[in-house]
């Protein structure tokens, strides 16, 4: 039973026409994790299947502990969206509902590497000398 509707699939496929560089989506899951781990795996698989520019890897939080630590992932489900490099974009919990749009936006963003921000913002961010960790708490509806 697919999660995405035909309409979703059509919209995402159109959005994915913007993809340039390869995208890797890593899902951290756990067999005994919540039901949403499985759903997250299915959802991400349906998304990456819509383009040949994206690939997917499923890792286990416990068995692949070193990779989880390297990605800064300590709970599941977690989704890491990388382009030619890791830009630091993570999703915790299933990226459905409103967050689905952000997932698709993230895939396009890391592929093109072109953020749409003002010159002022870019200049200020380029001058950052220390790490900035932004957490955005959201709900699917």
């Amino acid at each position, binding site marked *: 039973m697919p999660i995405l509707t035909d309409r979703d699939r059509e919209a995402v496929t159109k959005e994915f026409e913007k993809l340039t560089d390869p995208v890797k989506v890593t899902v951290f899951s756990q067999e005994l994790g919540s039901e949403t781990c499985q759903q997250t795996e299915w959802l991400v698989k349906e998304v990456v299947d819509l383009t040949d520019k994206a690939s997917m890897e499923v890792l286990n939080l416990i068995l692949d502990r070193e990779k989880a630590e390297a990605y800064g992932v300590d709970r599941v489900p977690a989704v890491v969206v990388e382009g030619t490099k890791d830009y630091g974009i993570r*999703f915790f919990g299933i*990226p459905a509902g409103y967050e689905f749009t952000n997932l698709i936006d993230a895939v396009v963003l890391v592929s093109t590497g072109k953020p749409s921000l003002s010159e002022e913002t870019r200049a*200020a*961010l380029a001058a950052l000398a220390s*790490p900035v960790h*932004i957490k955005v708490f959201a*709900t699917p509806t």
Partner: protein
Amino acid sequence: MRLAQHMAVASDQVRADCIEANEFPEWSQQYRVMAVPKVVINDRVQFEGALPERDFLSAVLRAVNGGGTPA
């Protein structure tokens, strides 16, 4: 989340986590999430609701320049 993601791509210093609040009640409680979206930057600066880019940037700069109060 949109702005946070774009900032993460613009700077190697920025990491952007999107957290499904209902799925992680303890995490949400830790940051006193009462309304969404709630943004927490470096555990120092926090705000609820969507901000325009300029204000979001101000919050980021406040967080790195030692402003705000620990979350």
